[in-house]
């Protein structure tokens, strides 16, 4: 089979049929789409397919190599899990948006040139925002708008960079770009917004917790990982990324500790995990790149699983605020169990997926002698266990009993969570299967006695710290609140500036108007007064004074005559 047909079209055009299919057939069709696309990916050979000549440029719709296939597989797996998870939802718009979104992310991964990449890039933005708006809550409209502005801004940077890149190199091919010129910088910013670089990150924490319970599961899989894929393709070995990634891994965990909305806690921990991947890409060695993309693969599953468990809690308990939850393990034992598997995976417990992928990045950093970055990443590893591994299950399912009694999650949600949990453990126990898919040959053994012991010590003592802080009452309680982040600058500061600027303008205008009004009245009043009986124009003049003035003028005339 040749690979000329773009795999993205299976999902995108397949999704267009969904509204016209009745009940069961629709569900079957939605489940079939990712499976068909997956079978197609398995059947086509490596190489460049689907090449189109356009305006003297060759556009490559299907570049099939190990890197694009890895992301293709995981995107389809994520699409399938998300569809299963959302199967009970009646809102057709969400199903269509979700599958078009997954399809466009898939298309972007297989794009061999920057123009095709850009088109799919924009389609992911436009389709994914529908999942935020579909919540139809009081904040959805505004949040979605902020989200899509960021996403389209990312596209604008990509387009501007791509055009400059074309002018500089004469080619639109999407391969290694690097940071050597303005084009590279603009493209990096475009990719950076999607990957949630510091100060470009807040769309993630803003929008993901505001989407529908099922929509967030879709969202968590594609946009940021597409950014990671694009960075791995275009900017491997760019040293600046090591520092950007280190910062990303560290700062969100502070926010995660004090955040009350548990889905927002997960968004912060996602930012932290992306940091690990960005560090790996920045290091750029074969081990580091393998680690970064393997971690992206594992993260899509375990972060999806965590978002699924929190989505189920939101659906059943009606809230996702840590301050209002607790004791839910009594009502939702299966969800609690799956959540713990996801938590163990993100925390990189031995035998869970995060352990076999994150450790590659840590080792790569150590091999390059990056002591400081390694220590920060180790801190972030302990921190992620602390907030995602313990805080999420603890405040939702254990802790203080909130008294909430609800039904267990719907069966389709449990099935999706069970598959994701099985994959988390499967990858952790048999890492060889994932390692075989990685872009470079893997010569790395995760399970050494030293490594297992060290990681277990790190995690158990982090747990001990949590328990001690909890029992001594030092641990900060969950409070109904929002925490200021970089979105403050545009949601409050810029908005406040615009408001006060408008007010100042209005005040100035009012001041001028008032002055003019007073003056106008005074002049009008003066004119009117002159026409009144006592006014200048209405006064009667004595004849004598008239004769006097005539005489004065004649005398003046005489004086000038003589002087002249």
């Amino acid at each position, binding site marked *: 089979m040749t690979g000329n047909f773009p795999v993205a079209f299976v999902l995108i055009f397949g999704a267009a049929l969904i509204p016209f299919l009745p009940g069961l057939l629709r569900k079957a069709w939605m489940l079939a789409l990712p499976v068909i696309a997956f079978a197609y990916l398995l059947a086509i050979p490596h190489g460049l397919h689907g090449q189109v000549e356009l305006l003297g440029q060759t556009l490559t719709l299907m570049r099939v190599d190990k890197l694009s296939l890895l992301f293709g597989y995981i995107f389809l797996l994520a699409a399938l899990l998300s569809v299963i998870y959302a199967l009970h939802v009646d809102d057709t718009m969400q199903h269509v948006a979700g599958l078009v979104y997954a399809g466009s992310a898939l298309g972007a991964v297989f794009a061999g040139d920057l123009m095709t990449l850009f088109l799919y890039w924009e389609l992911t933005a436009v389709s994914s925002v529908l999942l935020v708006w579909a919540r139809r809550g009081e904040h959805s409209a505004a949040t979605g708008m902020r989200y899509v502005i960021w996403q389209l801004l990312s596209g604008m940077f990509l387009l501007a960079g791509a055009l400059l890149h074309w002018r500089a190199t004469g080619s639109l091919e999407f391969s290694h770009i690097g940071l050597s010129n303005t084009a590279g910088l603009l493209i990096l910013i475009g990719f950076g917004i999607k990957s949630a670089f510091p100060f470009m990150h807040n769309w993630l924490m803003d929008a993901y917790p505001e989407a529908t319970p099922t929509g967030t599961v879709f969202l968590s899989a594609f946009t940021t990982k597409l950014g990671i894929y694009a960075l791995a393709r275009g900017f491997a070995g760019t040293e600046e990324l090591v520092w950007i990634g280190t910062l990303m891994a560290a700062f969100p965990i502070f926010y995660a500790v*004090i955040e009350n909305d548990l889905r927002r806690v997960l968004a912060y921990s996602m930012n932290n995990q992306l940091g690990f991947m960005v560090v790996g890409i920045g290091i750029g060695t074969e081990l580091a790149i393998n680690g970064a993309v393997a971690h992206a693969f594992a993260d899509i599953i375990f972060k999806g699983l965590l978002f699924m468990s929190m989505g189920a809690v939101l659906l059943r308990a009606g809230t996702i605020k840590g301050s209002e939850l607790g004791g839910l393990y009594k009502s939702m034992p299966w969800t609690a169990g799956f959540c713990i598997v996801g938590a163990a995976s993100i925390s990189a417990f031995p035998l869970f997926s995060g352990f076999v992928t994150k450790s590659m990045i840590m080792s790569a950093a150590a091999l390059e002698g990056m002591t400081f970055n390694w220590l920060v990443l180790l801190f972030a590893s302990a921190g992620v266990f602390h907030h995602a591994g313990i805080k999420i299950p603890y405040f939702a399912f254990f802790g203080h009993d909130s008294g909430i009694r609800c039904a267990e999650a719907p069966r389709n949600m449990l099935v999706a969570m069970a598959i994701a949990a099985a994959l988390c453990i499967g990858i952790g126990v048999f890492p060889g299967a994932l390692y075989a898919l990685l872009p470079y040959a893997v010569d790395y053994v995760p399970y050494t006695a030293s490594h297992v012991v060290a990681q277990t010590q790190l995690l158990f003592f982090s747990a001990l710290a949590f328990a001690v802080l909890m029992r001594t009452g030092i641990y900060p309680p969950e409070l109904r609140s929002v925490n200021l982040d970089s979105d403050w600058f545009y949601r409050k500061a810029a908005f406040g500036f615009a408001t006060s600027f408008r007010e100042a303008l209005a005040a100035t205008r009012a001041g001028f108007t008032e002055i003019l009004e007073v003056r106008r009245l005074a002049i009008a009043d003066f004119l009117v007064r002159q026409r009144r009986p006592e006014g200048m124009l209405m006064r009667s003049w004595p004849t004598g004074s008239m004769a006097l003035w005539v005489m004065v003028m004649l005398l003046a005339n005489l004086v000038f005559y003589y002087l002249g």
Partner: protein
Amino acid sequence: MTPPADSKKYWLDDPLNVSKLFKGLWIVCGLLIAIDLFLHRHEDFEFATVFGFHGAYGFFACVALVLAAKQLRRILMRDEDYYDR
């Protein structure tokens, strides 16, 4: 809020059992550190081979994280409707 009266009693509802878990955690941590006495860990950095390095790092990193985050609340925390006003 108190749990509904008809609710079934769970093992974790008893504070004594929670205390047992807490003690258990101390014991597990103690045993994990004891491994360092027998196992010479191969580490990429020399300083990481020090006895109990990972345990101490994990513990103090988390305590520092929580204390710092608690202080951050003073600067960052606002009412829930802060952006709606």
